[in-house]
């Protein structure tokens, strides 16, 4: 009985404290001069996509720590609140509600999955909170005709940007007839459509496109179909495990066809599964190890986290946070329209990602931060990703 009394007393007290806490924060709001500026991140921190979502978050955190150590945003510290959407669109939308209404963040950084970003950006747009997408690449996420356009910005390039760069590469290598392999999900099929459209615009011929279910245990049939079509090169738009299976099947049937792949293959599971079978494959990436800023980032990141072998996802998170911080300095920590205006006025912000002199900028009708010459190519060598070239023609249309 006595225990129960003590327990209820503690309960009442803690409830009271909670109310007091709520009260103080609601009277001061988020504009208090010494309060930290809260920034949200919604991404996959568990599940298959966490190989992208977690490094993305760690990259952001690294930038936050540096900015805070350097005096923060005009004297105020940044506080990162990360939410796990498990790569699920519905969860992502709920997390957006929570970050805006309960945590009162001034801006949200979007994660790696296009489907979840699409879902959360619609919620975020309703509140007029700016969202800066870190990693997700679907073309339609930034669409001037969409209702989400005014509040949605993106650090990374989109799929078509990569496809254009790879198309130029294929032309340069003298390939004409291209085969495509992709999974049968929305991701794979929309990718296949974009590849067909862009390659054909550039005068290449997409001879054949084959698909497979996610989690396929064998791709012999698809590989033989590509070989029968006698293509000069293959464009792989599958994810890691099936991409690796395809490369192993190529080796098995001893078909030495040049292969290029989507940026999503830049993950450890892909090379672990493919072993040396993926050697020679060309992949677009965003980080150039010869660029001093990138080199410095890689060293700093690996010392602290070391969970992103290709540094694609962590560096995008890092650049996104610096981009947002530049805008927050201009808006003096204010969110909403002031922050949107500040983002739209960002010009020539240096990035660790991208080519040697790449800088990012937004305008009121350009909500993609990337400019010309952003892409670098990696080549798989002895089961690891190696820098191939930064002489890549890449840009917007």
């Amino acid at each position, binding site marked *: 009985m006595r225990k129960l009394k003590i327990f209820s007393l503690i309960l009442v007290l803690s409830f009271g404290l909670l109310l007091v806490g709520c009260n103080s924060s609601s009277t001061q709001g988020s504009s208090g001069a010494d309060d930290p500026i809260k920034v949200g991140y919604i991404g996959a921190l568990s599940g*298959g996509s966490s190989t992208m979502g977690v490094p993305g978050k760690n990259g952001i955190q690294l930038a936050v720590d540096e900015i805070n150590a350097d005096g923060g945003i005009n004297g105020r510290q940044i506080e990162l609140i990360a939410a796990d959407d498990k790569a699920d669109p519905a969860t992502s939308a709920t997390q957006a509600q929570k970050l805006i209404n309960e945590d009162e963040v001034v801006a949200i950084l979007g994660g790696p999955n296009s489907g979840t970003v699409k879902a959360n950006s619609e919620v975020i747009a309703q509140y007029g909170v700016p969202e800066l997408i870190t990693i997700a690449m679907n073309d339609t996420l930034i669409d001037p005709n969409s209702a989400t356009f005014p509040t949605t910005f993106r650090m990374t390039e989109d799929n078509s940007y990569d496809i254009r760069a790879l198309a130029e590469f294929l032309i340069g290598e003298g390939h004409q007839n291209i085969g495509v392999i992709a999974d049968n999900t929305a991701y794979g099929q929309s990718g296949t459509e974009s590849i067909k459209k862009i390659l054909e615009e550039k005068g290449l011929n997409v001879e054949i496109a084959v*698909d*497979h279910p996610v989690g396929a245990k064998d791709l012999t*049939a698809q590989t033989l179909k590509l070989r029968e079509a006698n293509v000069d090169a293959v464009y792989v738009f599958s994810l890691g495990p099936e991409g690796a299976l395809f490369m192993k099947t190529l*080796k*098995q*049937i001893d078909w030495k066809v040049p292969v290029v792949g989507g940026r999503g293959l830049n993950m450890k599971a892909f090379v672990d599964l493919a*072993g040396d079978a993926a050697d020679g494959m060309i992949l677009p990436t965003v980080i150039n190890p010869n660029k001093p800023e990138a080199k410095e980032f890689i060293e700093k990141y690996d010392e602290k986290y070391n969970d992103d072998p290709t540094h694609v996802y962590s560096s995008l998170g890092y650049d996104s946070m610096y981009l947002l911080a530049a805008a927050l300095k201009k808006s003096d920590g204010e969110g909403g329209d002031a922050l949107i205006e500040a983002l739209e006025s960002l010009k020539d912000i240096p990035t660790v990602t991208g080519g040697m002199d790449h800088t990012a900028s937004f305008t009121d009708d350009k909500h993609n931060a990337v400019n010309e010459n952003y892409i670098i190519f990696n080549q798989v060598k002895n089961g690891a990703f190696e820098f191939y070239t930064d002489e890549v023609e890449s840009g917007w249309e």
Partner: protein
Amino acid sequence: MDVYGQLLIAGISTGSIYGLIALAFLIIYNSTQIVNFAQGEMVMVGAMMTFFGLSFHSFSYLSTFFIVIGSMIVIAFIFQHVLVKPLQKQGASMFSIIIGTIALGIVLSEGMGLWLGKQQYGVPPIIPNNPISLGNITILPQNLLIIIISWSLVISIWYFFNRTMTGLSLRAVSISTEGAQVSGIKISRMLAIGFTLSAVVSGIGGLLIAPVVGASPYLGLSIAVKGFAAAILGGMGNIYAGMIGGIIIGISESFFSFYIPSYAEAITFTIMLFMLVVKPTGLFPEHS
């Protein structure tokens, strides 16, 4: 010609995996009538433990093999003493036990995810990926290994159930629990052997498939579905027929993916549905 050969060998290789899962599934079904919906998750545990041994700790393949077998024995123990026995003691219906296996499967997936992370991991192959030529067709050593080990397991299991005293006793239990009990067979010991055998076969399935598709806590369901299909096609009453069912599904998937790719999955399961309607006992019902 080499296209057919190549498709055939691919079908046999994936089919052997389906068959192996059907085998594990049918061992439990035929000794206890329990439909084990956690079968796929048992394969998943095998795959994740392979990752744990090889990539997480860089143990040798032999040590990893023993880790997998050891953890499968633990899983079998949990299956019997935490799920089946307490439920049977309280007179729960078969239906409750079957739902219990679904719960166990989810617990295994989520538990594995919490422990080793919910990612998709890569696992290196047992033998390097240097293709072996058989005439004008080629096969990867890992796939050849899958075929050889799967079939050796089926043959050993057949031998166990038909030629050893323990195996025969286990069959006696499945035919009549009471009859076996009066004949002096220790039921719970027999069931422990059945569950362990099934779990170990699943674990080896996981060990074999991890280098092909990688390891993730959620790979169970997609594999189990094909395993169940193989068991139904072959005949639920016949432990070994699942292997034939698996091969048929594997080969049909392989050929349909080549000739009418978009329909491959649909056609495979239409065949299964058709079989269920026309011959519900499967292709090879037990003659006893």
